């Protein structure tokens, strides 16, 4: 067993009096595809957002790529380390509205990685080709469909060559017919070996690409394991209930 690339222990998070995460432990190996499932309000997205400090946890620790972080007290270096080695794909795409798709992908390369513009443009075009947007380079997000925007956002996340990519319900805001195009792009990148942590309800996707499925309920992980085990032979009652509902 290789050592965990990301290792979270005792993660707790409250929103006011509402206890959203009640002590979560999670291990993710390098290159592993982890799918987090669970009903809404179970804390999946919050867990993800606590990992790159979009949300500040109250308690807990995380080892990220051999870098130990106190999740209740991030230092500036911690934040910089995690964010420059990870990226995120959001439910609402969040492409920068005032930039074309190409500029969106170049932005992080130029501003955060310090790559010269010409080189950044080549990298950006490469990744946009990969997600099937090479014909839409100079379009603004408002002129694209949801699926196209999300594929652009995936290109933006991948172009930075992150060690881990967090997907926060990447297909939940999409029309059913657009879900497939985004999932197929995600399947393609999954084959390339980047560590992926995906919050999603797409059972088929979980079955096909996951190395591990984590099921969350009411702020705790109630079951985790191989996809076939969790999806077909769940032991936990809540998992059974949930899978029956969405199947």
């Amino acid at each position, binding site marked *: 067993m290789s050592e965990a690339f990301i290792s979270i222990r005792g993660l707790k998070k409250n929103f006011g009096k509402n206890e959203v995460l009640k002590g979560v432990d999670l291990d993710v190996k390098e290159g592993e595809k982890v799918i987090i499932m669970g009903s809404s309000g179970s804390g999946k997205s919050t867990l993800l957002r606590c990992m790159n400090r979009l949300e500040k946890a109250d308690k807990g620790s995380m080892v990220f790529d051999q870098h130990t972080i106190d999740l209740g007290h991030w230092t500036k270096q911690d934040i910089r380390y995690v*964010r420059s080695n990870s990226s995120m794909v*959001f439910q609402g795409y969040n492409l920068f509205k005032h930039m074309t798709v190409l500029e969106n992908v170049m932005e*992080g390369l130029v501003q*955060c990685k310090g790559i010269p513009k010409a080189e950044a443009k080549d990298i950006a075009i490469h990744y946009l080709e990969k997600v099937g947007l090479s014909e839409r380079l100079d379009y603004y997000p408002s002129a694209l469909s949801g699926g196209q925007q999300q594929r652009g956002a995936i290109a933006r996340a991948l172009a930075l060559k992150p060690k881990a990519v967090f997907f926060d319900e990447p297909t939940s805001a999409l029309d059913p017919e657009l879900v497939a195009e985004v999932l197929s792009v995600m399947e393609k990148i999954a084959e390339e070996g980047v560590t992926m942590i995906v919050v999603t309800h797409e059972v088929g996707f979980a079955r096909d690409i996951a190395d591990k499925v984590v099921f969350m309920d009411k702020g705790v992980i109630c079951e985790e394991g191989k996809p076939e085990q969790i999806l077909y032979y769940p032991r936990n009652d809540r998992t059974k209930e949930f899978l029956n509902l969405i199947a």
Partner: protein
Amino acid sequence: MSVFDWQFFCKAIPLVLKDGLLNTLNLTIVTFVFACVIGLLTALIKIYKVPVLQQISIVYVSFFRGTPLLVQILIFYYGLPGILNHYFENLDISRIPPIIYMYVVFSLCYGAYISEVMRSAILSVDKGQHEAAYSIGMSGAKVLRRIVFPQALSNALPNLGNYFVDIVKGTSLAFTATVVEVLASAKIIGARDYRFFEAYLAAALVYWIVCLICEVAFKGVEKRSRKYERRLA
């Protein structure tokens, strides 16, 4: 003496332009630039709840929005020289042109109004835009400069355009502090021949035309800044 002397009116327009327009434009542009800077800083202080400075900016905005500009002008014009004289004995205050005081009071007054424009424009930028920028590793300052400000600016432009036009007209109050701008020059020209109606009407026409040009210019800038909202690139 006829009710309206067209000849005098036509003569008055170029005179008003020659004597007053420069100071009006000068005061407008300086005020607008400084008011935007002050407004932006005040807005950021309020948004980020900077201790002490936040309380100061609340009082500042409240005072300058809650008192008439004319009163502020009189306070600064009659008060500031005395204060300067008291603290800087070597300073010859009679050599400071009155328009300098006007730069200060106009910038402060409109800065207070514009701070609210800036604040709402910054807050109207979607939170997801901040988060996406942070998630790719941008520093807070870069997020503001590269992502938030460009979007906030295009949100703010219609209101900024309004305030620009408002400043153009507001500068007419500077004549009370002996600054010879459009209104003051009309007053002087009118007094020469006792033809105030024609002279003031000439001033009104000048203001109107200047404001029309500004409106068109702002519309153009706004349209350009919103190009990303159109359906097609």
